[in-house]
């Protein structure tokens, strides 16, 4: 651990600001709380929002896991894990069950989370209405009035054009029946895990300077219509490494001839299953 920084990189004033905002976020589920996002030693888009939240949470006894699209061994995940090992000296892990804080980019682990775990999401665009309404003042008003007709029209247009709701990731949810919220670009496969989760879920958007929360055991409803209910992705394949047929699969190109294979996106889940099978 390097001792040239305050514990977990951020100064104490910044941590207090983040902590106050996090408490408000938990008290108003799904509402985007503005915060003073700091410059971090890596650029926006690399998880600066999630990193600032994690820095405000971490203590010396924490065990940190970082995943990027489900994988512990990709550049973004490895770098963030090493960053906190250096500036906070915390223990890190690739095992979901060993972690007390899990920072994630675009997935929720397949292994069910517990009440004593906190999941921190990296969020590129916290405003679910932004592609439909570019003005911040206007989207704020829409949230104030709980006027989410725009999003229903967008989903309806999907049905009119494609015959089904074509949104497959960052699928909008209604939290506690009040705030329309972006689940971050997780596949809609993961949306059911948001509903009544035992673990607290925190969302940080560094460039957009917003954070929000979904408390544990909170009603999280994926928008849909009575005649077009919400559905998650299904595959005709199983994971070719561990044989799982209920996990989220990535299609991977394996050679120059265009051969492909389907494997679990959650590397820890897949690895554990293979270890069990080998034992």
């Amino acid at each position, binding site marked *: 651990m390097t001792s040239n920084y305050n514990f977990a990189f951020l100064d104490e004033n910044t*941590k207090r600001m983040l902590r106050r905002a996090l*408490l408000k976020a*938990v008290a108003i*589920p799904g509402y985007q709380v*503005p915060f003073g996002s700091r410059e971090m030693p890596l650029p926006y888009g690399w998880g600066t929002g999630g990193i600032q939240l994690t820095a405000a949470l971490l*203590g010396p006894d924490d065990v940190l896991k970082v995943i990027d699209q489900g994988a512990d061994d990709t550049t973004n995940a490895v770098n963030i894990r090493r960053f906190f090992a250096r500036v906070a000296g915390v223990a890190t892990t690739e095992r979901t069950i060993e972690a007390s804080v899990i920072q994630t980019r675009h997935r929720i682990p397949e292994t069910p989370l517990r009440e004593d775990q906190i999941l921190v999401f990296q969020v590129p665009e916290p405003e679910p209405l932004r592609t439909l309404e570019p003005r911040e003042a206007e989207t704020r008003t829409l949230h104030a009035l709980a006027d989410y007709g725009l999003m229903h029209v967008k989903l309806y247009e999907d049905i009119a054009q494609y015959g089904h709701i074509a949104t497959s990731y960052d699928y909008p949810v209604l939290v506690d029946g009040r705030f329309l919220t972006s689940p971050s670009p997780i596949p809609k496969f993961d949306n059911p895990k948001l509903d009544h989760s035992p673990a607290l879920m925190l969302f940080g958007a560094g460039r957009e300077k917003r954070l929000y929360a979904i*408390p*544990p*055991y*909170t009603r999280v409803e994926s928008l849909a219509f009575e005649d077009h209910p919400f559905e998650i992705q299904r595959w005709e394949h199983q994971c070719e490494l561990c044989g799982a047929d209920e996990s989220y699969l990535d299609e991977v190109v394996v050679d120059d001839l265009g051969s492909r294979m389907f494997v679990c996106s959650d590397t820890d889940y897949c690895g554990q299953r293979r270890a069990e099978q080998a034992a």
Partner: protein
Amino acid sequence: MMLAAFAHPVFDSQRNFRELLQAMARPAVPRLVPTPAAAPAPILPATMAVLLTLCDADTALWLQQPNEEVASHLRFHAGVRLVQEPADADFALITEPSSMPPLARFAHGELRYPDRSASLIVQVEGFDGNAGRRFAGPGINDVEQLAIAGLPAEFWQQRAAMSAQLPLGVDLIFISGERMVALPRTTRVLED
């Protein structure tokens, strides 16, 4: 002589915050304040720990029972701004709940910014998880029961009136002894 604050400011406030966060995420369940801090009367050490964890020069604090020792202690250790009007406060410290101002006098936020609302820290006489009101809402799996001793009779009426304005409202942190309980605005009181 002035009392000391946290022995380890970085780690003590981190531990207190994590418990506060869990308390807010799991309403109506008492939790221990991990590192209480020395405090002049009428502030409890657990209350002082919460104040030192959350307050600084960026926050405005309203004291129900201000006195010179408390004011100079908080100004020195937290640099917090003390305000005269409940409506101006980000945080309000209630040390004698029986005579507390009505909840309507505190900032409830604006419809576009419901987070611009007060957090009340209320010292009460005790908690009993086997009696009292039943609560439900975000953070509560099914139902939690809790009696909070020492609140004025009109408190629950005021809070019920406030919940009609959601997402506007105030969030409450109750302290008794070394334990705290949070009641965010979204927690519903179930009718018997």
